[in-house]
């Protein structure tokens, strides 16, 4: 039987090609993901291990901690501790470190790199005058207060040479430094494309902490000294607000973190691979169904000469097994290629990935093979089971019998029941608010399965609906195409289903993304009246000095910070508060007042968001005790209740009130809103930038910029999703090609007859193409419908967390999806249509 199966595989090479391709693509996705993440993880952890090579013990400060008595502990590790550790017996050298944000301006004053990846640290020379973490490729480390060193990439991006003046912004104002040196480093963040500025030690301490303090110490041991022994000696010296660990332990923890990060990425990618494989099942199923149907006579002959049902069934399964093995093996290799490609693709997007060997774990190979074989055999199982029903007498039949249209009644009832359950669950979940998401998930699963089961039945009304149009526009070719598409409703359905799955996901994500994007957009335009929003590119707090600077700027009419603060009320509940400038706030942010007046803010009163007011039982005129961060309590009176918005914390008060309780800490200014004379204009923006001292670390955004920031994130996420779903869609397209190739093959005689009685080649091609377009569009319509419905349901559950939520159906994008589906049909039909048009009429019309 094995030999028969093998011969069958070889005999049907051409018809199996799409099946093989589908499995290859699915398996390649799986193995590519595994190889890529394994290799990346390995490279990252070996890189991190390397950076801890010379570290025997590391001490890290938690930062200043408020003690119970309200006093603060030391801000970091003191120089005294440093000196004590350095004096220990086994210690070779100690390097202290402080770090924070540092943005480098290029020649045009723009920030190099992207905000959150711009860091600064101190140059910490040890005994030989070198800092072991950095290799200088030019110049030396900064040893004077006015000197800095830059990582090589940042220096070359800014076109800076040693000796050049470089403008660097930290959290304070911008300063000009002289570039003393350029270095390379194993630092992970720098390797990932971030920038790093090294300052002279005292300068860095002043910028980031306090002179004489460090956030981190790395201790190198003398030869022969054990790290564990050192650790036990260091521990008593570091005090309460710092922790000491051996370098080895740190490296291990780092490796674990990396592994965890990788497994998250792994799971996401594998989920998409699973979708691709799931879609592939439909294609494989179709192929084996056809192979079995075509071989009815052959299989009957086997039965007639004495093969048992089981043997016949097994021969089909063995065939599937062989196909599975071959395609998984190819898929595995393709996956390795994919992993290599992915790595270089990410490299070209600027994310530098550390070099390392390609890791092909035995488990990866095993997983890829098992998945490929199991998926193929699973998909072939139903068709194989059907062979058991072939009667031996079928071998004697003269011609192959037309497939008897088995009743779809049972199938439709099951599918209908599943779909109804699914839709009911989705609708119910939509009504349950944010708790409904799990219910919707179940509903989505059931309704998708239900629709897949029902899809042959659904194909009839759909095609009946488009038939008149096709007939009118394309004449007889259109009419025949529509009829051919419903000829084998199961096959058409299964083909369309694979497209429908992909498009359900694509449409669902798109509708949700666009809806959320629109809501955020509306919120921005509704709330922000200011012309400009000023913030740190790094997302850190702005320096207090920007407020007077902006107020003094020419053309500025109103300025208000959005200063974050906290206070406790009642039973130790922490409340977030926004400190604003009462004088300018009405011009800058729209606070929809429900009761009271925002003018009361100037009197030190507080405005409370409506939902919070309701929960806390606060109304205008009521007052409450607020315990601030510095331990002091103040009685606050409610002056206004306003409608909650995303830009302000639930309690809004005069920033001066917050300032009173800072207790020597920096004010946490998230944004500063600015209104200008005459509104947004290039000149006004320039005035603001100038007022801020052309600080590259500060971003000045107008309303469009603010909206684009959110829109950009949503678009980028959608594009990534489209990319990941691309594989599933590609397999669905292969499915359409497969189905059409089968149809053309089965209808050779008919096509020959049509050619003989006068249908020209162009119209034969049209007929096949239109059939493909009808099938693709059918799948697309189902997918778009289901996807929109799901997006609506999920939207209902997130509605409450987004004010002004309104479902937006992006008809333009949906139109593009449908158009693309039609294009997919035309493309998929290219090869089958050509072979149909080239069919030799004479062989086609000859009877067997």
């Amino acid at each position, binding site marked *: 039987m094995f030999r028969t199966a093998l011969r069958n595989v070889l005999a049907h090479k051409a018809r199996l090609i799409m099946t093989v391709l589908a499995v290859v693509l699915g398996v390649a996705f799986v193995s590519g993901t595994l190889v890529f993440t394994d290799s990346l993880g390995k490279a990252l952890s070996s890189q991190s291990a390397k950076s801890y090579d010379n570290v025997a013990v590391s001490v890290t400060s938690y930062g200043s901690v408020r003690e119970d008595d309200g006093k603060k502990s030391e801000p970091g590790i003191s120089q005294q501790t440093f000196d004590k550790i350095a004096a220990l017996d086994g210690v070779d050298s100690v390097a202290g470190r402080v770090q924070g944000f540092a943005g480098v301006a290029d020649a045009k004053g723009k920030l190099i790199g992207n905000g959150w990846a711009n860091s600064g640290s101190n140059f910490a020379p040890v005994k030989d005058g070198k800092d072991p973490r950095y290799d200088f490729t030019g110049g030396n480390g900064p040893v004077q207060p006015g000197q800095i060193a830059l990582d090589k990439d940042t220096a070359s991006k800014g076109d800076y040479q040693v000796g050049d003046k470089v403008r660097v912004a930290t959290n304070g104002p911008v300063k000009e430094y002289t570039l003393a040196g350029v270095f390379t480093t194993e630092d992970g963040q720098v390797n990932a494309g971030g920038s790093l500025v090294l300052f002279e030690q005292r300068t860095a301490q002043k910028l980031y902490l306090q002179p004489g303090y460090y956030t981190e110490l790395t201790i190198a041991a003398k030869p022969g000294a054990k790290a564990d022994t050192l650790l036990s000696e260091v521990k008593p010296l570091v005090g309460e607000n710092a922790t000491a660990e051996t370098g080895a332990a740190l490296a291990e923890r780092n490796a674990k973190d990396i592994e965890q990060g990788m497994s998250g990425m792994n799971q996401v990618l594998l989920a998409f691979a699973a979708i691709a494989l799931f879609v592939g099942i439909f294609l494989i199923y179709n192929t084996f169904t056809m192979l079995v149907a075509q071989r009815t006579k052959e299989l009957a002959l086997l039965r007639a000469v004495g093969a048992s049902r089981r043997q016949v069934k097994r021969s089909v399964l063995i065939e599937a097994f062989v196909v599975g093995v071959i395609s998984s093996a190819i898929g595995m290799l393709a996956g390795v290629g994919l992993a290599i490609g992915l790595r270089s693709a990410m490299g070209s997007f600027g994310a530098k990935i550390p070099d390392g060997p390609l890791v092909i774990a035995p488990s990866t190979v095993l997983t890829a093979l098992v998945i490929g074989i199991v998926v193929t055999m699973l998909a072939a199982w139903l068709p194989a089971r059907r062979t058991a029903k072939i009667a031996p007498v079928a071998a004697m039949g003269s011609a192959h019998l*037309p497939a008897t249209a088995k009743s779809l009644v049972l199938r439709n009832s099951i599918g209908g029941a599943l779909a109804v359950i699914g839709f009911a669950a989705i609708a119910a979940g939509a009504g349950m608010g944010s708790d409904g998401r799990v219910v919707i998930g179940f509903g989505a699963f059931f309704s998708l399965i239900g629709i897949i089961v029902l899809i042959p039945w659904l194909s009839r009304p759909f095609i009946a609906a488009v038939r008149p149009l096709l007939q009118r526009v394309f*004449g*007889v070719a259109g*009419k*025949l195409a529509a*009829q*051919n598409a419903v*000829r084998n409703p199961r096959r058409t359905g299964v083909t369309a289903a694979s497209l429908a799955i992909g498009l359900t996901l694509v449409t669902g994500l798109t509708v949700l993304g666009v809806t959320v994007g629109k809501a955020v957009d509306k919120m921005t335009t509704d709330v922000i009246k200011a012309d400009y929003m000023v913030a740190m590119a790094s997302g850190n707090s702005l320096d207090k000095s920007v407020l007077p600077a902006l107020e003094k700027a020419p053309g500025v009419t109103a300025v208000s910070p959005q200063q974050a603060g906290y206070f406790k009320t009642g039973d130790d509940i922490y409340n977030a508060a926004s400190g604003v400038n009462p004088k300018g706030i009405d011009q800058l942010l729209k606070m929809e007042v429900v009761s009271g007046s925002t003018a009361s803010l100037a009197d030190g009163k507080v405005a409370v968001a409506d939902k919070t007011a309701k929960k806390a039982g606060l109304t205008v005129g009521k007052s409450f005790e607020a315990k601030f961060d510095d331990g002091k309590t103040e009685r606050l009176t409610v002056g206004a209740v306003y409608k909650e918005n995303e830009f302000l914390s639930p309690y809004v008060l005069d920033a001066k009130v917050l300032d009173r309780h800072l207790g020597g800490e920096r004010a946490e200014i998230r944004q500063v809103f600015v209104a200008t004379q005459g509104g947004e204009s290039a000149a006004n923006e320039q005035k603001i930038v100038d007022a801020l001292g052309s600080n590259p670390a500060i971003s000045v955004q107008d309303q469009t910029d603010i909206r684009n920031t959110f829109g950009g994130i949503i678009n980028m996420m959608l594009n990534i999703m489209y990319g990941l779903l691309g594989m599933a869609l590609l397999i669905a397209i292969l499915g359409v090609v497969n189905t059409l190739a089968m149809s053309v093959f089965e209808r050779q*005689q*008919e096509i*020959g*007859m*049509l*050619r*003989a*009685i*006068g*249908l*020209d*080649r*162009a*119209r034969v091609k049209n007929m096949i193409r239109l059939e493909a377009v009808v099938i693709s569009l059918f799948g697309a319509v189902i997918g778009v419908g289901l996807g929109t419905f799901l997006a609506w349901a999920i939207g209902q559950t997130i509605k409450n967390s987004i004010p002004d939520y309104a479902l937006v159906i992006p008809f333009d994008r949906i139109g593009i999806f449908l158009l693309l589906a039609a294009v997919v049909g035309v493309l998929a039909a290219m090869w089958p249509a050509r072979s149909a048009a080239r069919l030799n*009429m*004479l062989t086609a*019309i000859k*009877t067997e």
Partner: protein
Amino acid sequence: MTTMNFAPNTTAVAARATQLSKVYGQGETQVVALDNVTVDFVQGQFTAIMGPSGSGKSTLMHCVAGLDTFSAGSVRIGETELGSLKDKQLTQLRRDKIGFIFQAFNLLPTLTALENITLPMDIAGRKADKQWLDKVIEMVGLSGRLSHRPTQLSGGQQQRVAVARALASKPEIIFGDEPTGNLDSRSGAEVLGFLRNSVRELGQTVVMVTHDPVAASYADRVIFLADGRIVDEIHRPTADGVLDRMKAFDAKGRTS
């Protein structure tokens, strides 16, 4: 009556092959399927082409009907010379001037009987001549079955649909490729009867390839092919006469 217009006109030629040759392969493996065949198919006549397997009878029909290309010689359908036509023009010619009846019926299972009958006209984008269509349908006795699909019809009924399809577009010539090959003798006789009637009453020209002497006896004229050449012909044949002639070739073939 319109039938008068289709009265046999013995002088006009519906199709003509002149020194027609068809050669497959090259050199040693060369097979001559048609060897310098010259034949006229006169308008309003029912011609049967006979011959043993491999005699070239099907090839002759395919070449004359514009389904196959030929190596040398010329073929005319009416006034049109086929040798110079491109595929597109040939297709159009088949559509407008030729009707076909195949052994395996070759109906489209997705279309009803009526839709199958009007298919060539649908392809051409022409409206069917209603009167003519009714007449044809009545003649083949399908009036009650027009909305049936081919799978709901018997083999004989299916072939009657095929005959109606060939007649419906009033082609200049109808070619039949073993039209009774898949039918029982009664249904076969019916179909042949329709073909003969279409010639006698409607003035249609019919050329049919067959290996069945009884089928050939319905024709006005039988031509015999052997080894790619026309070796004989009978006018107004009888089944026995044809059979005798066949036997003679067979014997000759065996002894030579």
